[in-house]
């Protein structure tokens, strides 16, 4: 078994861990509005190591999950996550995203963009949009980026690979 394949399996396990954290641990621990979004961390970490098309597909899948499990407008989450995944993948080409802090910053920006697109696509009113984008989204971006940093430092060896063929 090649080392690249082993790393992919390990990466898959980390993604699975993040999914479990999202759906089993997150509801128990934090306030939903500012708690870390583990699915978005998984998406961004995957997107930054994948081609834009695959990242967009992964984003679409994550968005579909979000749309299905949250009572927001159906399709808004898929659209937002598709855009974030695609842009995250392109962003790695533009920035030198091998630095863990840059990765964490990517995650924070991705979350804020995701929230922006979801809120706009859902037809949120102006006042709530401002409150969300200036207060809750930055707070959640901070916590999410912080946790992404922990994940990156803990699994540094796994995230140094590039998944592109």
């Amino acid at each position, binding site marked *: 078994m090649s080392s690249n394949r082993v790393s992919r399996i390990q990466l898959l396990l980390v993604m699975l861990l993040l*999914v*479990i954290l999202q*759906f*089993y*641990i*997150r*509801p*128990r621990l934090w306030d939903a509005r500012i708690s870390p979004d583990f699915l978005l961390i998984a998406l961004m970490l995957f997107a930054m190591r994948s*081609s*834009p*098309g*695959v990242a*967009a*597909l992964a*984003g*679409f899948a994550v*968005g*579909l*999950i979000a*749309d*299905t*499990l949250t009572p927001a*407008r*159906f*399709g*808004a989450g*898929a*659209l937002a996550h*598709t*855009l974030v995944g*695609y842009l995250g993948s392109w962003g790695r080409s533009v920035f030198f995203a091998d630095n863990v802090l840059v990765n964490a910053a990517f995650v924070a920006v991705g979350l804020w963009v995701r929230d922006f697109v979801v809120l706009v*696509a859902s037809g949120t009113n102006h006042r709530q949009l401002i409150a969300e984008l200036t207060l809750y989204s930055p707070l959640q971006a901070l916590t999410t980026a912080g946790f992404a940093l922990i994940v990156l430092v803990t699994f540094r060896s796994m995230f140094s690979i590039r998944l592109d063929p």
Partner: protein
Amino acid sequence: MVSSSDRRYTRRDTVLFVLCLGLSLFGLFSPTSWGYGVADTLRQTVLFPLVWLQTRAEEGRTSRVRFRQVTLERDSAAYLAQFLPSLRAENERLRQLLRLSHRLKIGYVSAEVLHQPQAMDGRTLLLSAGSREGVSVFSPVVSPEGLIGVVLTVSRTSSVAMSWAHPEFRVSAFTVSGNAFGVVAPSNEGRNGEGALEFRGVPYRDSVPLGTLVLSSGLGGVFPKGVPVGTVIGTVREEAGWERVYRLRPAANPGSATHVLILVGGRTADLRPAFPSDSLLEALRLDSIARVRRADSVAQAAREARAMRRDSLRRASPLQGGAPQVQRVTPTSPILGGAPAAPVPAAEDSAQ
């Protein structure tokens, strides 16, 4: 120069992105029912494990919150339950005291017993009424059960009473049947650490059966006649064939008394009617409860009648846009034996 593989790679990415974007926009602008249908299907199939996981997490969180809430409720209930028996007992004692005050035909002052955590508490009692309320030295102190003691010293706002447990306490007494007289004094041989009384000086020829109630006789001018002192529970000794000493179970317990009445006048009065027997007390209590229930029923019937009257007036009022209706409601009260309650005015009353 871009190679053909790179171009294919870029084209594939673009196609995937556009496809995902198109599907997202289709989901976004499709009818809401379609979106809900797709979401329902996904929840029940592919995403079922995630939904199950989230459900378990939510249950865990809510059960934790519920557990905390139940624990708090249990603690509160336990805290309240600690005081419930004592509150009920105090309530019952106050009711008894109230009934006694209604039955007393002489002047009295109600007072609280200010217990002190000392070994001698119970022999002397600090009372919350003094000379300002008309209390004087040697005023008898009674509770609903019977004699507690006598006032020893008086200040302006408080007084100290000597209870029957005090070694110097004496009261002239007689049996309820009236065939034996004597003096009641505290006993030195209390059973099980409880205080007891002795009924001394009873002539040898006067036999007193067990269970006989002993009352104050009124002789001596300190205690009025007819206040229960205790019940005969046995013989202590016989003095050289001319006197018997009986053991009494005290009628009232100074150690547990919280509220008392201090009698301030009419020491020559006969208070036997104010201290009826246990069976009579029970009958009086039941009668009191029945009277309260009757009063409640009548009040309830009156409230219902008033409510019906209001409804009738509202319906009949021309300001409401409805034609005046004549409606007579004749509510009956079960207590009043089906008699019609307050008459409901007809529409002509409301039109005026």
